């Protein structure tokens, strides 16, 4: 239970960090030259980038949590 809470907290912190990075990136885009700014007129791409980058972290951590649970179950069986 404790490890699940720790994992969930880690995921939350990482998502917050990714969001902060995304927001800072958006701010930086406004300083780009006129030609480059055309591609940044909509905020929609930022959401897509944010979701894509979060998916990587969630998938990897999800796999780690799934494997940890399976290992704990098997070790419990082994010690019985």
């Amino acid at each position, binding site marked *: 239970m404790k490890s699940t809470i720790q994992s969930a907290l880690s995921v939350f912190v990482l998502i917050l960090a990714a969001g902060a990075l995304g927001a800072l990136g958006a701010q930086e885009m406004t300083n780009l030259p006129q030609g480059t700014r055309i591609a940044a007129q909509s905020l929609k791409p930022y959401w897509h980038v944010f979701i894509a980058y979060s998916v990587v972290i969630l998938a*990897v951590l999800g796999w780690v949590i799934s494997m940890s649970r399976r290992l704990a179950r098997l070790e419990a069986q082994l010690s019985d």
Partner: protein
Amino acid sequence: MSGNGLRKGGVALTVLGLIGLLAVYWLAFFWVSTEIRQGVAQRIFYVHVPAAWTAFLAFGIAALTSAMYLWLRDERLDRAAVSAAEGGMVFGTIMLITGPLWGKIAWGTYWNWEPRLTLTLLLWFIFLGYFMVRSATDNPEKGKRFAAVVAIVGALDIPFIHLSVVWFRSLHPEPVVLKPEGPSLPGDMLILLLASVAVFQILFFGLFLFRYSIENVRGEVESRAREATVA
């Protein structure tokens, strides 16, 4: 290497990979130049392509170890195959989610039944079948053998995925890195792409070792259960 050693090695590589992933994210947002036509959406490239290459590598390892398992009947090869196949599914899923997110901005649609997308989805479903076949038979040995054949058949799809953009009309661009005349990406984009590929592979191998150590524990549980039944 002992089970604990494998697990510790796996955890160390995974932690290294996660730190590397954060570094890649920082570089993707603050260092690499913005592609002029697609804007910020092109940054999905730095996770989509490494996830795809890692998935293909994992499925390739699964097929290779499966073929060797059919030949040598060594349990360790089957454990390596199932661990790699599971990694391939995770990175394949990342590829199949991040691709449409990029496609919606670049092409105006989340999905299109063009050759590369269709073949990639087929590969994902073939390896989903790999896990279903493993557990579908009463005899586990038979399940492992059937699944090994599925893995080999699935991996035959990978070269077609790579060449589909050359052979057929496709929304995907032709290769910009893996081509005979060398990469055509700007320097900073290429550096970040290769760094991201390295980080994804470190993550994969770390988690692969961890998963393999779990299969070792499962093998031990099963052999003890067999011994108990015989006794």
